């Protein structure tokens, strides 16, 4: 096992990784920008190194600074968290070339899965269902028309190197295809410095369902149930739950086995997430996230596996601590992301936290880096914590979340807690039968 890990991240995930290290008896190095000197993860770490000014480019995305910090602290491994450099194959390669362990898959696996076209091909080869679409990049207007006609409208034009909704265009009719194709290309060029686009069937009213997998370096891979992340606003997940209220036991098993098989086939190791669109009882592969997810706690709550601990263990070469047979789903879990935002306008609300009291009691978990007197800086994203509950069934989890949201006190700034209170009371949400468009409509109602 490692004796010291550098945590190349900030916020709640940096604290989450620190906790896993502590419980494994591993020393931690926090790297931080000048804006985060007083952060909880920095205070709790065994060592801390200031790596640059607030701008992420000069600190949390500054590979040279992070590697220099690893060097001067004699670190053995680097945990990238999520976001920032977590899915940057070059970073993983540099860590490896420096003789350290990158806690995540091999660089070439990250690279393969980061390329949407190659990833899709690999999934098809493993028998994973994909959205009907063009075979790779669509290079001309005529190719675009041919592909769209084969797939059938509505279609969506997407950037090969993209993500986060940028460079995406939904096209309902042949008439508007060519224009959308050209706009998508130029947006792709602008945002991702790569104008390659491809075309897929557009799924009208899907759910977002993702399978958590975990694999070791000895060829073992297991699946750990799905998470339902259909509750989104502008492509940002807002609330997640596990298991999905709409996935059957058979679907869970089938999709899970496909994902674990694919992981084995591509030589995956560590934690990974296979994202799918669910349309009726059809599933379509979207992408694999080669890192721990924000919403990983809901999986931990229902499976009992500490995913971050397991990431570290398998990176150190250990075998998986569980077999597929050991994985039992116990109850239901929900996570609400608490953002420092106005709950109606979603304007960011940085500032000083003047009162802070998290909920307590049975079945409650709070993953947050903030505290009373902490100043939320305007430099980074607005998620300041996650409230996760566990109940013996979905109904108990919902009741518990409502109770916990009522107890949560965060003063001095605006947060999305009131939004979550409203969602938890909504009859469509309570029914479990909601799609990715639910939140959009819900927000318009009021």
């Amino acid at each position, binding site marked *: 096992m490692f004796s010291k890990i550098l945590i190349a991240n900030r916020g709640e995930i940096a604290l989450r990784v620190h906790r896993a290290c502590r419980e494994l008896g591993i020393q931690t190095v926090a790297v931080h920008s000048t804006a985060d000197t007083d952060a909880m993860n920095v205070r709790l770490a*065994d060592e801390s190194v200031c790596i640059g000014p607030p701008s992420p480019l000069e600190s949390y995305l500054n590979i040279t600074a992070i590697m220099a910090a690893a060097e001067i602290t004699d670190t053995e491994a680097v945990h990238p968290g999520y976001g920032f450099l977590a899915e940057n194959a070059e970073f993983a390669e540099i860590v490896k070339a420096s003789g350290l362990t990158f806690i995540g898959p091999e660089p070439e696996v990250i690279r393969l899965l980061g390329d949407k076209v190659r990833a899709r091909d690999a999934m098809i080869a493993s028998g994973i269902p994909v959205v009907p679409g063009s075979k790779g990049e669509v290079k001309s207007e005529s190719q675009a028309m041919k592909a769209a006609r084969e797939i059938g409208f509505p279609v969506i034009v997407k950037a090969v190197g993209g993500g986060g909704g940028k460079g995406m265009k939904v096209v309902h009719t042949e008439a508007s295809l060519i224009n959308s194709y050209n706009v998508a290309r130029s947006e792709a060029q602008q945002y991702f410095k790569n104008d390659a686009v491809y075309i897929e069937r557009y799924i009208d009213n899907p759910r977002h369902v993702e399978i958590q997998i975990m694999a070791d370096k000895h060829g073992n891979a297991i699946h750990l149930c799905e998470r339902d992340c259909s509750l989104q606003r502008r492509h940002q997940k807002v609330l997640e739950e596990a298991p999905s209220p709409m996935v059957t036991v058979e679907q869970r098993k089938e999709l899970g086995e496909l994902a674990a098989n694919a992981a084995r086939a591509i030589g995956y190791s560590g934690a990974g997430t296979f994202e799918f669109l669910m349309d009726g009882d059809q599933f379509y592969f979207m992408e694999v996230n080669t890192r721990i997810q924000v919403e990983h706690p809901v999986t931990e709550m229902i499976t009992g596996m500490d995913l971050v601990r397991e990431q570290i263990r398998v990176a150190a070469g250990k075998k998986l601590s569980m077999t597929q047979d050991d994985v039992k789903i116990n109850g239901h879990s929900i996570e609400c992301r608490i953002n420092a935002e106005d709950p109606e306008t979603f304007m960011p609300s940085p500032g000083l936290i003047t009162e802070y009291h998290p909920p307590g009691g049975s079945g409650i978990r709070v993953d947050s880096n903030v505290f009373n007197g902490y100043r939320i800086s305007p430099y980074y994203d607005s998620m300041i914590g996650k409230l996760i509950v566990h109940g013996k069934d979905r109904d108990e989890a919902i009741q518990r979340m409502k109770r916990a949201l009522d107890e949560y006190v965060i003063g001095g700034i605006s947060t999305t807690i009131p939004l979550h209170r409203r969602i938890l009371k909504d009859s469509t949400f309570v029914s479990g039968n909601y799609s990715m468009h639910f939140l959009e409509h819900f927000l318009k109602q009021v």
Partner: protein
Amino acid sequence: MELKEIRQLIKMLDGTDVSEIELTREGSTLRIARSIGGGEVVPMVTQTMVPAAPAAPVVQAAAPVAAAAPEANKDYGNLKPVVSPMVGTFYRASSPESPMFVQEGDMVKKGQVICIIEAMKLMNEIEAEFAGKVVQALKDNASPVEYGEELFLIEPA
């Protein structure tokens, strides 16, 4: 935000009595503060919490390098500190056999190399930002340093 825009903004402030401007757009934040009126400085007093921050709950024996957070504007009277622009290892000479770039008591010119910070096997030469007399070296040769850590005290010429 583009550099050009920022330059325009700064120019725009000239001749006005605006002391500070802060602009946030598409995730970028720009803040320009000026001291106006002949030496009268506008202090940006961001009175921050002292009372409520949890005291570091675990005071671990942190490794010497990592313990010190970058010093925040210590008062050195007429002396000015040179701070490290990056994380790395601080060297006072280009090789173990070479003489030190500067000794205490030396006069340095603006732009003169005064030390090296090594990061990822790259030797980064650090230059004096102003001329003056080296009064004190604050770090030993081969010490690890953080971003913003103070390296030398210089009495400006």
